[in-house]
C-alpha cells in the first residue's frame, strides 16, 4: 500500500481511481457543468497512461447513452457529470438501471437553475433519487478515491449489475486539494475483479436488450429490479469489508460520530459532515450529549443500519441541502421520517434546509442548528421546515 500521503485535487483523485480501475470507456460531455474529472481523464488517455476509449459527446444525454452501449458490450464504463448535466441525463439514467448496466458515475453535486447556478448543493441528486442507481456519498478526497474504486467492484458484481453514482459535493470536494493515500496498480488489480457481464452483447451469442414492455409484463420487470437493488446492500457491505482489509479504511452504509450515548443527533450527507463534526466536538466539550449521523448509502436506503443508529436518541435533527418545493420537509428528512414512522419508539425529528447554491455552513452555524433544533423540539414545533441563514 502506498504509504506516502500526497496532495491532490478531488477531481484528479477520481481520475486516478478510474485509471487504476483500468476503465475501458469514458464518455463525457466536456463543457460546464463538467469538472476536472473528465479533463484529467482525457489527458490520461491522450498521453497513454490509460488505455481507454474516450468519447467526447455532444450532450449529457448522449454521454449516458454512449455509456449504455459500452457497458452493454462488457466494457468497464465511467462517466462524470454535475448539476444540470445530471438532469439532462435523467431519461437515460432509468434505462441504465433497468437494463442492469454497471456504469460508474461521479456526480459533483450542484444546485439547479434558476437563477442560473453552478454552485454546490444536493438539488441534482434529489431529482434522481428514484432512478434505480446505487448512490453513495463521499465526505473527503480520500473517500472519493476509495469509493470510486469500490463502486466498480460493487456495480459489476454479477449479483448486482446496477449502475452506481458516487456523490462528490461540487466544489467542496471536486475542486479542493487535500491529502490522500493512493493505491498501487498491483493492489487495485488484486482488489478489483475483471468486469464480465453475463449477458453482454456479442455477435457470436446474440441477445436482445431493451425490448419493449407492454402492460402485461412491465410490472413483472419492475419487481425483480427493486428486489435486486435492495439485495445489493449485501455486496456493498462485502466490498467495503474487502477494501478495509486492503487499506484499513472502513466504510459503512450509516456512519456515526460520537453518537453512542447521544440524546441529540444531527444527520448530514456529504462533505459538510466533517464541518459538523467540529460543532459536535465543541458542544461535547461543553458537556452536551450530541452526536452525528452520516448517511453514506443513499440507495438502496439502509433501513436496518439507520434505525439501529438512531434507536437511542431522543431527537434527530436533519439537515437537507435541497428543497422539495411544497413538500413535507427537506427530501432527506421526509425519507428519514418515513423510515422511522413504523417504529413504536423513535426520536423526534426536526428539519432544516441550508447550504443551498454554494453557501457554506460554518461550525457556529452547525452549533446553532443543533441548539435551535433542541429548542424547537421542546416547544413541540415538529411540523416546520426551517431554512437557515436566510437574509431578511
Amino acid at each position: 500500500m502506498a504509504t506516502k500521503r500526497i496532495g491532490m485535487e478531488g477531481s484528479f483523485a477520481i481520475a486516478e481511481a478510474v485509471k487504476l480501475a483500468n476503465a475501458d470507456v469514458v464518455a463525457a460531455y466536456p463543457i460546464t457543468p463538467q469538472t476536472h474529472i473528465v479533463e484529467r481523464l482525457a489527458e490520461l488517455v491522450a498521453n497513454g497512461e490509460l488505455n481507454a476509449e474516450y468519447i467526447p459527446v455532444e450532450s449529457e444525454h448522449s454521454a449516458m447513452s454512449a455509456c449504455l452501449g459500452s457497458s452493454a458490450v462488457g466494457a468497464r464504463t465511467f462517466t462524470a457529470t454535475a448539476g444540470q448535466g445530471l438532469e439532462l441525463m435523467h431519461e437515460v439514467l432509468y434505462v441504465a438501471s433497468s437494463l442492469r448496466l454497471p456504469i460508474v458515475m461521479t456526480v459533483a453535486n450542484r444546485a439547479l437553475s434558476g437563477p442560473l447556478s453552478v454552485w454546490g448543493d444536493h438539488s441534482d441528486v434529489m431529482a434522481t433519487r428514484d432512478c434505480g442507481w446505487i448512490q453513495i456519498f463521499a465526505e473527503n478526497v480520500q473517500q472519493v478515491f476509495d469509493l470510486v474504486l469500490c463502486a466498480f467492484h460493487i456495480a459489476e458484481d454479477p449479483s448486482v449489475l446496477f449502475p452506481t453514482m458516487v456523490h462528490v459535493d461540487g466544489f467542496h470536494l471536486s475542486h479542493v486539494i487535500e491529502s490522500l493515500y493512493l493505491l498501487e496498480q498491483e493492489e487495485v488489480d488484486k482488489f478489483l475483479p475483471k468486469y464480465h457481464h453475463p449477458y453482454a452483447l456479442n455477435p457470436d451469442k446474440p441477445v436482445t436488450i431493451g425490448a419493449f414492455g407492454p402492460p402485461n409484463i412491465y410490472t413483472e420487470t419492475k419487481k425483480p429490479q427493486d428486489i435486486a437493488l435492495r439485495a445489493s446492500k449485501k455486496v456493498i457491505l462485502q466490498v467495503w469489508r474487502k477494501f478495509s482489509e486492503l487499506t484499513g479504511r472502513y466504510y459503512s452504509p450509516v456512519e456515526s460520530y460520537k453518537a453512542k450515548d447521544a440524546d441529540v443527533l444531527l444527520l448530514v450527507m456529504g462533505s459538510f459532515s466533517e464541518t459538523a463534526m467540529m460543532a459536535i466536538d465543541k458542544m461535547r466539550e461543553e458537556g452536551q450529549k450530541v452526536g452525528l449521523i452520516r448517511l453514506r448509502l443513499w440507495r438502496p436506503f439502509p433501513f436496518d443500519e439507520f434505525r439501529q443508529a438512531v434507536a437511542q436518541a431522543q431527537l434527530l435533527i436533519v439537515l437537507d441541502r435541497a428543497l422539495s418545493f411544497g413538500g413535507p420537509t427537506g427530501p432527506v428528512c421526509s425519507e428519514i421520517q418515513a423510515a422511522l414512522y413504523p417504529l413504536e419508539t423513535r426520536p423526534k425529528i426536526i428539519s432544516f434546509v441550508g447550504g443551498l447554491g454554494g453557501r457554506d455552513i460554518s461550525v457556529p452555524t452547525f452549533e446553532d442548528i443543533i441548539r435551535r433544533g433542541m429548542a424547537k423540539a421542546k416547544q413541540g414545533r415538529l411540523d416546520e421546515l426551517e431554512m437557515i441563514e436566510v437574509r431578511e
Partner: protein
Amino acid sequence: MEKDETIEIRWHGRGGQGAVTSAELLALAAINEGKFAQAFPSFGPERRGAPVLAFNRISNVGHIRVRAAVTNPDVVVVLDPGLIYITDVTSGLKQDGIVVVNTPKSLADIKSELSGPWKLAVVNATVIAREALGIPIVNTAMLGALLKATEILGLESLVEPIKERFGPRAKNNIDACHRAYEETLMAELSVVGQGPRKAFETERLLSWQELLPGCVVIEAGNAKQYRTGDWKSQHPVWDQQRCIKCGICSLFCPEGCIGQNKEGDFEANMYYCKGCGICARECWTEAITMVEET
C-alpha cells in the same frame, strides 16, 4: 335498457378496422340520448391488422367510475370473422350475454362453431361496407348490428355522431349502419359444443422470477415465434398455371414468408403472412389473388 342498468361491451377488431371509432360513436350517441357512457381503447402497439380491443360502458344511472378494461362483458362485438379463431372472443362473457359477429358464414355454420349460454347475432358487414362505402371498414355497419341485437339505443341517435365524424362520407356510413340493422339475424347458441377451432395456442406470460436481469432475451432469433399471421383479414392464393416462377413476390413480401415448396411452386407461410397484399400487387403475371379470411 333497464332503468338501473349498466351495460358493458367489448369490441374485437383489427388495427385499421375502426373498432375504437365504433366504441366512440356508440358512447357519444348514448350521451346524446341523456345516458351516461364511456368509450376507451386498449392501448397497444399500433399496427394495421393486429388484434385490438375497445370498450364501452353505458348506464342509465349516473357517472361511470370504473376505469378498467371490460373483462365480464354483456355484449361482445367481433368486427373480423378471423378473430374468433385466434382470440378467445367470448372470454368472461356474462350468462345470457350476446355475441355479435361479422361473418360471411350462415347463422347455422357459426352456431356450430360457437357454444355457450349466449345469444348470437350475425351479419355480413364486410359485404355491406364494401357496397355502401367501397372499402371493407365495418365499424358503422357493426354499430347497426349491435343496436339490432341489444336495443340499448335508438338507431337514430347514431346519426349525429356519424355526421360529425364522417362529414361528406356520413351518408354512406349511415346507410351501412341501417342496412346492417335490417340484415342482422339472431339465434340462441347451444350451451354445449366444441367451441371454435383455434388456429394457434395462446401464449403463456412469464412470471417475474423467470425474467433475466435487465429483461435480456437470450433466445436469439425469437422473433420467429411472432405470429404476424394473426394480423390478416385476407390471404394470397396462387394460380400456379399463371405463375412463371420469377420469384418477384418473394422478394417484395415484407415478412419474407414466401418460398417454394417441394414441387417448386411459390406459396406463403400462413403463420407469418399478414395479408398485406403486396405480393399480389407486385406479381406481374397476376398469378396471386387476395381472398377474404373466413
